[in-house]
């Protein structure tokens, strides 16, 4: 049976259709979830796509964090459900505290839309297991606030606990320096492009795998990231267990 994967649509999301297409290429049946939905309809995993949720007012991702669907996503994550936030979705997850750190304004202040290289730090996660090797992958970024920040102690903890998922690299897969804007486009600390929560079931990723999911887009390097998620969701609950969704509490409006 084809696994169903939810794609959350906030007002201002603009990568949801591309993400649905990418998930379809990766073998899933995408299901659009509206920001006012209070349950996830039994999907096997959730993707928060890119865009400018709620106009990115105040701080990117912060208003979206308080939307009804995010309460359901937080509960799903708490029970072990797989959640991937891409670009603005990563910012929403960080603001919600579902992944560590914060995304600051790009070091050079400009919005960046171009290809970068990233490499997985781990190949044994629900988000990377289909990658097979740690070579550099070419994916586009499109963001104004993508500079990953956490304090030094947190960065040490993330590295020690294996929570760093992807780093910005040069094409030869060597890790990009913080002050190398060509390879590390936004100045992310320790070149972190993607992180996971401590439990390893929620991940945020700044570049866009769905925009590099087939050759006609110039790169198909992102497809294996989506395929990892889809296969992991299909393998649940045996390999990546998740507790059942509790009944929805009906609240009078």
């Amino acid at each position: 049976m084809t696994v169903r994967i939810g794609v959350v649509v906030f007002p201002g999301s603009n990568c949801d259709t591309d993400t649905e297409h990418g998930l379809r290429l990766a073998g899933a049946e995408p299901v659009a979830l509206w920001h006012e939905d209070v349950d996830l309809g039994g999907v096997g995993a959730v993707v928060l796509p890119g865009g400018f949720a709620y106009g990115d007012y105040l701080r990117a991702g912060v208003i979206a964090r308080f939307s009804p669907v995010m309460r359901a996503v937080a509960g799903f994550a708490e029970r072990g459900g797989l959640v991937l936030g891409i670009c603005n979705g990563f910012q929403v997850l960080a603001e919600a505290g579902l992944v560590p750190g914060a995304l600051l304004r790009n070091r050079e202040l400009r919005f960046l839309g171009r290809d970068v290289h990233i490499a997985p730090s781990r190949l044994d996660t629900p988000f990377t297991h289909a990658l097979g090797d740690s070579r550099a992958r070419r994916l586009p970024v499109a963001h104004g606030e993508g500079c990953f920040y956490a304090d030094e102690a947190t960065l040490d903890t993330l590295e020690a606990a294996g929570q760093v998922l992807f780093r910005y690299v040069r094409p030869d897969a060597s890790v990009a320096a913080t002050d190398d804007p060509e390879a590390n486009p936004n100045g992310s600390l320790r070149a972190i492009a993607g992180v996971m929560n401590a439990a390893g079931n929620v991940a945020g990723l700044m570049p866009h795998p769905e925009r590099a999911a087939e050759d006609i887009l110039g790169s198909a390097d992102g497809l294996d990231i989506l395929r990892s998620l889809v296969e992991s969701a299909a393998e649940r609950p045996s390999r990546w267990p998740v507790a059942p969704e509790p009944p929805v509490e009906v609240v009078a409006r």
Partner: protein
Amino acid sequence: MSTTTSRGATTPADEHGVAAAIPTFRYAVDVLPKPGILDPQGRAVEGSLGHLGIAGVSDIRVGRRVELSVAAPTEEEARATVERLAGELLANPLIEVHAIELIGAISPAGRGTGGR
């Protein structure tokens, strides 16, 4: 219905148009990047100083100021609401610091005190 001051702050009123006995407090919340966190906006502003021919200015930090009115029985309760709002929404404590300042109050009778 409500009573409105020149600043646009309002006090709640009942159906007879009489102001309810809850005062309104007006606050400003200043949000700035945490010390030590790179502030590229501040750096960009600093970079422009040379073009203005200004010397001796340094350590520019750029943040945002949010002003809001809170109806509550006491200033302590109003401030507690603003603290919560600042900590959970207006500022991200991982990367920002905030400061709360009372800038005005409107008594139940609608007579403004302070404010600007």
